[in-house]
């Protein structure tokens, strides 16, 4: 169904690392902390698994914001995955910015397995940012709208 201004709600994709952030999301759930239902969590083995293509494909398919959550630097289950992810995402976000895509639409946060509260706060705050930014019109495939 075509999305009109009125019934628009932000669609957010969250890539969560299996070892920390996904467990953090679990903890947020079991602690009955709420976060918006429009956030679709995709579990990845490590934040480093997130290929730039994944992020762009998410936008293509109608995402309004993409957030990547991984273990805190130094705590990676695979020792260094999130360090690589950090460099990659920095460069990618900078490129999206360079092409004129709104900065707030992409974010990286480090959330550990113990940080259910941080997970829920981050998601709430990110959803608010995206709602303020409005619908993603610059980087999406019209056919998927």
């Amino acid at each position, binding site marked *: 169904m075509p999305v009109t201004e009125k019934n628009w709600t932000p669609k957010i994709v969250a890539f969560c690392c299996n070892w920390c952030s996904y467990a953090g999301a679990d903890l947020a759930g079991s602690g009955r902390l709420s976060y918006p239902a429009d956030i679709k969590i995709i579990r990845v083995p490590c934040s480093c698994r997130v290929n*730039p*293509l994944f992020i*762009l494909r998410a*936008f*293509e398919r109608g995402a309004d914001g993409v957030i990547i959550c991984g273990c805190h*630097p*130094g705590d990676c289950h695979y020792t*260094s995955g999130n*360090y*690589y992810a*950090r*460099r*990659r*995402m*920095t*460069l*990618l*976000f*900078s*490129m*999206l*910015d*360079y*092409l*004129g*895509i*709104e*900065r*707030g639409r*992409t*974010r*990286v946060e480090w959330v550990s397995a113990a940080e259910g509260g941080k997970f829920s706060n981050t998601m709430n705050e990110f959803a608010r940012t995206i709602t303020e930014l409005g619908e993603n019109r*610059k*980087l*999406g*495939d*019209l*056919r998927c709208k």
Partner: protein
Amino acid sequence: MQVIANAIKKRALELLADGTVARVLGWQPGEQQSDWSPALFESADDMKDFVYGKYAGANLSKTCLKFNKAEGKTLVVLKPCDALSFNQLLKEHRLNRDKFYIIGAGCKGMEDENGLLLKCQCCKGKTFEVFDEVIDDEESRRLPPSDRFEQVARLEKMTHQERFDFWRSELSRCIRCNACRNVCPACTCQKCVFDNPDSGVAAKANTTDFEENMFHIIRAFHVAGRCTDCGECSRVCPQHIPLHLLNRKFIKDIDELYGDYQAGIGEEERTPLTTYTKTDADPGVVHERGNE
């Protein structure tokens, strides 16, 4: 240039005659004044078409991939900037050094029918990173230095909307011929991610604006840290899209965030994206840099 060209030709003939090399990779003239093409010469007789000079703009290092497994050695003529690409391919183990005899050729900036090539306007090839011998003269490699990030910096200063409009107007010309990808000496995947039949998109038509953005972001990202800024992508673009501005943005960011780095130098150094430090900035740094 004619002196250098004659010297290269003489040397190539000698090496062909004594069996050191089995073939020569160079340029041949075209139908018009400036339309030279890369060409292969397998005998002294073939060599009469060999040329070197101001229209030898093409980077031959990617063509070398075709001869990596050929019988005998291949002589390849590389300009300083081409040698960077060649060396980067060596570092990635895509080329076998023993299979090539490299003549480093002196260069005074290459041209096409519209004058000095865009890539030569910020010449960075002052030394030969890899060679067996260099044929050069006094006036070579003297192009005045210029700031290659000037245009990138100008774009960074624009507002988001201006940048978006700029890139939309540039990228909307893209016809998805894939010439930029196919010519790029850093794009050497056996099967490109865009040729994946399961990706759901045809890599030959931009069915939406998104496809244009997508392709060019990913193309530039996949060579980030390995791109030597050889400028071939912009040179070959039939629609004159300034693709080097995407690559240079990555280079500029890498230089600013992780320290100066030039791909294609050295033997073993890791590229910025295959290494890290524990004190790297978080991706949020992007939000604090630059305009807006």
